[in-house]
């Protein structure tokens, strides 16, 4: 019989298969980074503009501008654009966020030439036709109304408003009427102001055809794509929200959504790496204390987790779950117990060992292949960090002690300083 009582020996990975990006600055000010790798004929082109909803004058403008890039250009109608994309088997990812806007396309290398031409067309010459804008807003308004029926969604938006305030773009809660009355001029203006090569970078990853660089330069490096100065972004002061508890009753709910957290800082903060490890121990993976206690031991929920979110100008921490309405209070109490425990109950040797191995493999996973690495590169470029910052995380992971984790939790995740939102019953 095979001895099943002793686990096979394991080994940590000691090297990261890092692909060094090749960077070029095009004449019009656009930075392009190439990450080559992979064996299939597939690639991804992603343009990141360093402006998002933070930069807009009215609600939803960044969102609509980004989502409607393909709604019609000087030369092409919405129908022609979507047909051309679909015909070449490509999909466009239009992803407006708070600080950035990302425009990505996944494609087979053999279709690079026509698709780059199309990308050029929609990035440089969008028209945002009024009719397409109205259709889009009407459809998005319906999705918004449906989301207002979801306890989880409500808890998220209320929480953001609490920690940043409604006057700050990070905290603004979109209203149903925001989908009405938007003019295409606002979109044209947002596009004119921020969709500029000097305000962007481009990452090209995957198996790259030989002429990729040249094609890209001729399509996106064009001088006609305004090389003019980019305006400085608006400045919104951050509030110090303190700690509050909000309960929103939604009659008829079968579950309550709970969100507990606070305003914090982003990944450029000196304590970030250590705090990220403490957060993982609390609620960042299946073996975390919250998941083990509240799902695996108590059976209160299908899932619970905690997160650190990095925004460009700030960051926040939150715990999120949905629980049966009957155990709402019990679950909330357990969450606070675990927050308290994070600063008072040291990780055992085995707990820390497992966490370390898991997180270091996860780090390796985040470098698995050119597409995964393009995500890492994007993150570094947006926050102005380099690979040494990633390496510092691994060093921290291998050396951090249980006492240091308790200390960092005590400094930043003290259970008394939390904002709490419950939506449901």
């Amino acid at each position: 019989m095979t001895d099943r009582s002793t686990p096979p020996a394991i080994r940590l990975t000691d090297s990261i298969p890092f692909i060094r990006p090749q960077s070029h600055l095009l004449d019009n000010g656009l930075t392009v980074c190439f990450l080559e790798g992979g064996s299939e004929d597939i690639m991804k082109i992603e343009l990141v503009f360093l402006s998002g909803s933070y930069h807009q004058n009215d609600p939803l403008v960044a969102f609509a501008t980004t989502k409607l890039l393909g709604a019609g250009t000087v030369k092409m109608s919405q129908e022609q654009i979507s047909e051309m994309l679909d015909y070449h088997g490509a999909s466009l990812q239009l992803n407006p966020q708070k600080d950035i806007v990302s425009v990505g396309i996944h494609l087979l290398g053999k279709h690079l030439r026509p698709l780059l031409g199309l990308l050029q067309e929609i990035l440089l010459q969008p028209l945002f036709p009024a009719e397409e804008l109205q259709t889009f807003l009407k459809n998005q308004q319906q999705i918004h109304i449906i989301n207002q029926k979801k306890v989880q969604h409500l808890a998220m938006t209320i929480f953001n408003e609490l920690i940043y305030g409604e006057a700050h773009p990070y905290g603004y809660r979109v209203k149903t009427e925001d989908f009405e009355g938007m003019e295409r001029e606002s979109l044209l203006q947002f596009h004119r102001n921020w969709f500029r090569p000097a305000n962007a970078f481009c990452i090209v990853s995957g198996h790259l055809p030989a002429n990729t660089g040249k094609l890209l330069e001729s399509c996106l490096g064009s001088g006609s794509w305004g090389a003019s100065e980019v305006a400085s972004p608006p400045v919104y002061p951050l509030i110090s929200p303190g700690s509050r508890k909000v309960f929103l009753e939604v009659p008829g709910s079968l579950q309550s959504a709970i969100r507990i957290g606070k305003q914090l800082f982003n990944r450029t903060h000196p304590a970030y790496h250590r705090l990220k490890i403490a957060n993982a121990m609390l609620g960042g993976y299946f073996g975390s204390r919250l998941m083990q206690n509240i799902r695996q031991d108590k059976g209160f929920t299908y899932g619970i987790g905690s997160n650190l979110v990095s925004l460009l100008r700030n960051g926040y921490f939150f715990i999120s779950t949905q629980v049966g309405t009957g155990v709402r209070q019990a679950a909330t109490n357990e969450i606070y117990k675990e927050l308290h425990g994070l600063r008072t109950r040291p990780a055992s040797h085995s707990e820390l060992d497992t966490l370390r191995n898991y997180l270091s493999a996860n780090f390796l996973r985040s470098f698995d292949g050119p597409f995964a690495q393009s995500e890492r590169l994007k993150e570094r470029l947006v926050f102005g960090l380099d690979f040494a910052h990633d390496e510092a995380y691994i060093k921290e992971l291998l050396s951090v002690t249980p006492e240091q984790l308790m200390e960092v939790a005590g400094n930043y995740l003290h259970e008394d300083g939390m904002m709490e939102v419950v939506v449901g019953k």
Partner: protein
Amino acid sequence: MVSYEKHSLPNGLRILVHRDDTTPMAAVNILYNVGARDEDPERTGFAHLFEHLMFEGSKNIPDYDRRLQHAGGENNAFTTNDITNYYLSLPAQNLEVAFWLESDRMLGLAFSEEKLATQKNVVVEEFRQSFLNQPYGDAGLLLRPLAYEIHPYRWPTIGKDISHIQEATLEEVRQFFHAHYHPGNAILSVSGNVIPEEVFRLAGKWFGELPGRKTPQRKLPAEPLQRKQKRLVVQREVPQHQLIMSFHTCSRLHPDFHATDLLSDVLANGDSSRLIRKLVNHKKYFSEANAYVTGSLDPGQLVISARLHKGVDPVHAEEILWKELALLAGEPLGERELEKVKNKVETTHTFSESNHLAKAMNLAYYELMGEAGLLNLQMEKYARVSPERLQKVAAGIFTEKNASVLHYEKANGIKGKEIIQE
């Protein structure tokens, strides 16, 4: 093209290996040939509940998840109407840990009343979260029993009702394990930075000594040909009227499957697809439209759904959809439109070939369907679908009597009331 090597153990376990040295990771997939269709109609949701219990400790290892995480692994599982599939990925050098863990839970589970009780609660919360506590969440619960009368596809994997989960007993868990969880009823596939001979050696070492058991023969009732359209109208507190039309189709293994799948793409895959282009963007009847095939191993469904804008008459909306379907049945697709949907399939397929986990899953699934090598024939099968074939298949599917139609009406203060419409 996914190259692979195959080996079988005397106890019936089949093993497939694909080597991909562009990744430092390895993926391990174990497919058990048991799904919701194998459940007792009085214990629906059981296969999925059982999937949860597979993580609650095995004969020699009380803590599956922690051991895997310790080796840098990540895992998950899903249950469908046909199969239960477990998968993990970990740094390739720790591959043997996966064999240790997976073979031990195939050898035997550490059953206990407490763990069963906790996981019942977790699954009940999953039921509420995914199906009951959000608008339109119960569509699957309503549509399946409408479309199927006697085949076990008439209930969803989560189960017909929460009470079925709450009533499950430990003895039933034991019997289910004995009947379905053994080498002959499983397919193991490994993909990533691995050497096939080494994988086969590990398989022999860890799984070789597991006893083979007889695989029960499935005797599922065939769904009789539907002769009359079925209709259901429900009233719910939803913001918009939603219309769902579901049609009986062939099975995943039938030669017409690829044409059927392409039909759903023509309807609603991408902004240039017919429903999105004409009815969402141009005519503005719908705020969203969708179409998909279930792709099940027994005859499945092609499902179309649409959410109506305020002021659009549901009767009219349904007529409009029927007209679109009649077009597909009435005339062959143009060359370019057909080429377009095939190109989309090609991109999806090629991207999946760059993902070691997707490759492991696919190898196991195609092996279940007959032979892992079928995976590499898929592109050709899609490519061979002709406009005439597509039209013929559409004409067979999109008939009035083949349809099950579900309307979600906005309730006027009335909750949960259901009306069956003749």
